[in-house]
């Protein structure tokens, strides 16, 4: 498994920030704009971890997690949910869908890296 992370967010500035931070920490980053895009990009791409936003057009974060967990070979991939909705219900829903963890926006770059280190190499 490579050190490649897929970041899924409909906000370009968030993707840029996530990509910039993680590239700085030595990871490869692939970007996707929503759940559908993410599913299209994940197959065969040797992705080691997914960071996804919750609220997105086309396919939201929760649905993406459910879909990814059903894919062969991705049953155990770490998936972190990126969300501003820090209510427990959303975290719980995410966990039940199979999320490994979550990050509450706003966060600092070093917080992102520490969460990635927590669930990924």
């Amino acid at each position, binding site marked *: 498994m490579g050190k490649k992370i897929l970041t899924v967010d*409909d*906000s*370009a*500035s*968030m993707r*840029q*920030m996530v990509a*910039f931070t993680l590239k*700085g920490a030595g990871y490869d980053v692939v970007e996707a704009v929503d759940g559908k895009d993410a599913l299209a990009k994940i197959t065969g791409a040797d992705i080691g971890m997914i960071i996804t936003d919750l*609220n*997105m*057009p086309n396919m939201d974060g929760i649905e993406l997690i459910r879909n990814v967990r059903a894919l062969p070979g991705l*049953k*155990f*991939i*770490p*998936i972190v949910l990126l969300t*501003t909705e*820090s*209510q427990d219900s959303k975290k719980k829903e995410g*966990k039940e869908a*199979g*999320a*490994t*963890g*979550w990050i*509450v*926006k*706003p*966060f600092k*770059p*070093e*917080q992102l890296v520490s969460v990635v*280190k*927590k*669930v*990924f*190499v």
Partner: protein
Amino acid sequence: MDAHKETFREEAYELLAELERSLLELEDNPDDMEQVGRVFRAMHTIKGSGAMFGFEDIASFTHNVETVFDQVRSGKIPVTRELVNLTLSARDHIKDLLDASATGNTVDKANASHIISSLNRLLTGVDEADASAEMQDIQLPSKTQATYRVQFKPHPELFMNGTNPLLLLNELRDLGECTVTAHTENIPVLEDLNPEALYIFWDVVLTTDKGMNAIKDVFIFVEDDADIIIDVLMEEDLYGGMDQPQPRLGEILVQHGAISDQALAKALSSQMRIGEILIKEKVTTRTAVAAALSEQSQIKKRIEQRSESTQTSSVRVPAEKLDQLVDLVGELVTVQARLSQKAAKQGDPDLVAIAEDVESLTGGLRDNAMSIRMLQIGTTFASFKRLVRDLSNELGKNIELTTAGGETELDKTVIDQLKDPLVHIIRNAVDHGIETPKERREAGKEEAGTIHLSAEHSGAHVLVRIKDDGKGLDPVVIRRKAVEKGIIPSDAELDENGIQNLLFAPGFSTAEKITDVSGRGVGMDVVKRSIESLRGSIDLSSVKGDGTTITLKLPLTLAIIDGLLVQIGEGYFVLPLSSVEECVELTGEQHKSRKNGNILNIRGDIVPYVRLRDEYDIQENTPDLEHVVIMETYGKRVGFVVDRVIGGHQTVIKNMGSTFKDARDISGATILGDGTVALIIDVNKIVDLR
């Protein structure tokens, strides 16, 4: 971080534009839940990203709107005109905040609180939304160092959500000095083993100054998936001493629940080492004792030594500068051209191969650098929807703006500089072009007027058209006005095209009275000049009663010019290829035998020509046969006489700098493959200057 801020700002402007589109859409179709979702998401992203990148004022203001739209989304608040208007003003306020963040200006706070209170009024009667923005507590490291025992017993299905427990143990190790003991006694025999289940659990002894919360944070994602017990074994003040006695193995085992007080007491009465006795007595397992022993040894070590706390640091990287990149690529293209020329001259096949590789790479790099600067014109188009809506409301007109070709890409600089002229043209169309509903009815037209904005590629150019179905231009009125203003003499002979071109003359305004909408002072002449400064051209056609179409012809990019390289005497010049129509020859005979000024007859067409030799006073080596490059300027054909036409030359434009600002007919310079400088001629200016 500043680069992120800039991206956020750009993104926010886009989102605001999208927001506006959705809101206007919503006004027409209040039940369109997809648009409601879009509005919510736009607000949500502005809030979330805003808070990330230090735009707290925007985040907290947007939060109010998001809250309302969350309720709209769940059907608790209906979409009304009031809501749309309010949200539009909220959108404008967010834009003001964004503008202010760039300029440092202050914004109208009263307006903001007015909007918020109006939004909150919509919320009353609805369940109180959780309005407190949750922020994560940041735990300050405690000054005191302590040793903890962490018992981490994950549930067997821990792997199912992608958790890797080893990473959590590593994280604990990062917190401080750490001893980990794995308990493997629950692993079943192979045939009963489920490879996807987790049977191991861990005892960890950790000495850290980060505090209990830091340890809890390690397990934050697995709180519900594991049994986690954290106990303080020993506390020490970093600046003071420690007073706890060294714990004994038996006591630790009792605390772990591995043995009972009685078993300990019994074992203590024996003379053997206590661990050995307990294992022999089968009151506990070897792993349990090992865990306890390691705990003991660590505490012992802690008492003997102190460790320093470590600090992580972050590095900031300066943002790349796109313009600088394009500049550098330009330089590279020049150097590459020199290399190719040198390689061709030397004829060394290896060098030629390298030069060809460099050429293709440079080409790719150049296209790439340029494409980074390309933007879709659609966002600019969309911003006019609001303009047309507001203006037509103000004037009591009913106007719809339709767009096409929004995906057409143009250089960012061109788009930026195009906006003002477009605003002006659209304002004119709304104000002077489209009639009032009453006038339209009387003219037998539909009450609602249409302004159609379109963009399309045309070779190296993009054509932007602004077409309205209004009353069109009245040549009689234009002529009368022009005579009144002394722009043309009263007996001037002008064809229809000539009359329409009067609109671009400085100081011309046809409006019966000057309105707020299209303003005064800035006329179409300014629009024309700004389009021409973009190396573009403007064309107008109008049919009285049917409407007006204005066509802007713009270059794809300002940084590169497709030129025709020509030679005059010893000097090289570049003519913009996009305006070149054809090249013809001019013999010395023809030139000398001319009667009425410099005029050529090309297949029956009379074309005036400019001899650049005369223009630049180049005397030496006049060839017998000169060449005339026929170019289109202001819709007319004009010839430019040169010694020799060398060929097409795609080149990066270098500015001449202020020293040469008086050389108005030279728009820039470029460096040729052998290092020679070629001047880029602005043919329109030459015609102007004559």
